[in-house]
């Protein structure tokens, strides 16, 4: 187990290096000049090219690309993503503040998705080709096909604007104290919107896994021992069928963050997804790069943890 864990961690390192190179190249090779923000056009015309060159030198942009990359990487490894262009503080502190909000939203979304997907998937598999199977399968297709932003807007329109049941945006109304119901009211809509895709995918996986498991010999054995159907399904089948769901969780992390960017923007949720979008729109390059790296690291760590968990829950997996 220890060997396997170490091997997986070692495999994650080249992955992170490639991600950092890709991130750096995308931002730095794109047309558009990061210095534009720092250059005062009036000064530039008065002082000439020396002024611009001076600013570039000051920002370290006069050095070749690979040197800049290694400098950036060195800082990143020390946890320093630089200063945000717009908010006068470090990228790390901005992200550190927003990350818990995104994690809470993602976890609640995933929870909602699983609460619906697991029972629905089981019903679909046990009553294969029944009316329930068709209904839930259709629902999962609908979940896959809904445009996130439009679905969010429609929910706001119905539940916030027309019915007035839930707030339209933000994370809380009460800024002085933590009020559970206040937080709950704010998280429901964004979590449903964000969880929709995961629910659809998990339902399909759950159905597939359950169908696979109930065909196995040990299920027949359990039945022939005279165990009740409930025990057979819950104790013998479900436990094994849940294994792929665990791995799915690792893979769903990029999708969650991707969805979070849209969901958080629509619901004005103060998380990393919204910061990513805002940073992109305001050309805040250090913030964009920092955001990318943090999300990518979380993704790689997430799939690593899912892989290890997979090995824990499924003893059939050999650690080589």
């Amino acid at each position, binding site marked *: 187990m220890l060997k396997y864990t170490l091997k997986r961690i070692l495999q994650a390192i080249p*992955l992170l290096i490639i991600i950092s190179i890709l991130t750096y190249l*995308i931002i730095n090779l794109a047309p558009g000049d990061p210095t534009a923000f720092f250059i005062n056009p009036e000064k530039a015309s008065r002082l000439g090219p020396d002024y611009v060159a001076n600013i570039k030198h000051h920002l370290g942009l006069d050095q070749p690309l690979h040197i800049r990359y290694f400098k950036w990487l060195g800082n990143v490894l020390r946890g320093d993503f630089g200063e945000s262009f717009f908010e006068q503080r470090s990228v790390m502190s901005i992200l550190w503040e927003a990350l818990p909000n995104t994690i809470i939203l993602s976890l609640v979304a995933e929870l909602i998705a699983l609460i619906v997907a697991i029972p629905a998937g089981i019903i679909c598999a046990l009553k294969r080709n029944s009316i329930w199977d068709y209904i839930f399968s259709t629902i999962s297709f609908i979940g896959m096909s809904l*445009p996130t932003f439009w679905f969010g807007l429609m929910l706001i329109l119905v539940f916030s604007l027309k019915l007035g049941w839930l707030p339209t945006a933000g994370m809380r109304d009460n800024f002085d104290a933590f009020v559970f119901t206040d937080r709950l009211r704010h998280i429901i809509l964004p979590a449903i919107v964000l969880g929709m895709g995961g629910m659809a995918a998990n339902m399909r996986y759950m159905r597939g896994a359950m169908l696979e498991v109930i065909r196995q010999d040990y299920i027949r054995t359990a039945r022939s021992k005279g165990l009740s159907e409930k025990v057979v399904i819950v104790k013998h089948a479900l436990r094994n069928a849940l294994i792929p769901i665990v791995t799915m969780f690792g893979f769903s992390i990029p999708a969650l963050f*991707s969805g979070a960017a849209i969901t958080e923007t629509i619901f004005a949720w103060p998380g990393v997804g919204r910061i*990513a979008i805002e940073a992109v729109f305001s050309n805040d390059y250090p913030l964009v790069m920092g955001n*990318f790296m943090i*999300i990518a690291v979380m993704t790689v760590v997430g799939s690593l943890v899912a892989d290890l968990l997979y090995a824990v829950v499924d003893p059939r997996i050999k650690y080589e």
Partner: protein
Amino acid sequence: MAELKLNNNDAQIELAESAEYSDTIGKKLKIFWRRFRKNKLAVISLFMLIFLYMVAIFAPLIAPYDPDGTADDVMMADMAPSFHSYQSDVTGEMKTYAPNYFGRDELGRDVFSRCVYAGRISLTVGFVSVAIFITIGTVWGCIAGYYGGIVDNIMMRIVDAIMSIPTMPLLITVMALFKPSIYNVMIVLGLTGWTGIARFVRAEFLSLMKRDYVEAARCIGARDRRIIFSHVLPNAVAPIIVAATMGMASAILSESGLSFFGLGVQPPTASWGNMLMNAQELSTMVEAPWKAFYPGMLIFITVLSFNFVGDALRDALDPRLKQ
């Protein structure tokens, strides 16, 4: 008893099908259609897609208004949907107006006509970007799967890396850095969407490369290119077609998401996504919900149809893949 009979019948059909394995394309299509037909939702979806493409092709004949033409009078802005033609003398003389099935937007443009023309844009963007990413993904997967070893290792780590970057922030960043335009949307969606296809084409290659007939081809001295294109790739065509269909769904969703943020297709050209852009303000949502409802509904129906058809294609083209 009835069920048993049915199963028996199915088994016979399957047997017959396998016997027909070497038959002509026409017969294969017939078998394919018989399997596809079983999925009623997919058949409905297929006709839906044909209908949507027809509407897009014949847009000028269907749209009652010029999609970019603003209304004759400010009073007509944000007009509610109506199914009757009406008369008005805002221009000074009495004029008959065609019905505004989906209402009018803030500039008094007919939402229905815009939706019809936007279909052209959204469907084309989907098609072109899928064509790009299928090509890249297939070639990437072929090379990695065929050569294996260190080549495979490096190529697949790059795929893993791209897959760990969440799509939407990546797309938004790239689109914001390059100039947003319809062509850039196609290129960027094409350049970012290929990783999944590369992965399974590689997997398909790895398993097919172990087959005897590939070994045989190698023994008689066939060149790499011949083995890849004549012997292995044709066997991977079915899943590629399925991925392309599902890819249309995701490409249309991504395009609409980008356009929604103002980073995709640029106004005044209408796409289903950018028609939703102005609907973001909550006041518009309450006063003129039709502006947001119809374009979003069309995205949803199109994407749903592609997903249903893709799913049925998977079952029909390759029964092995059926869950």
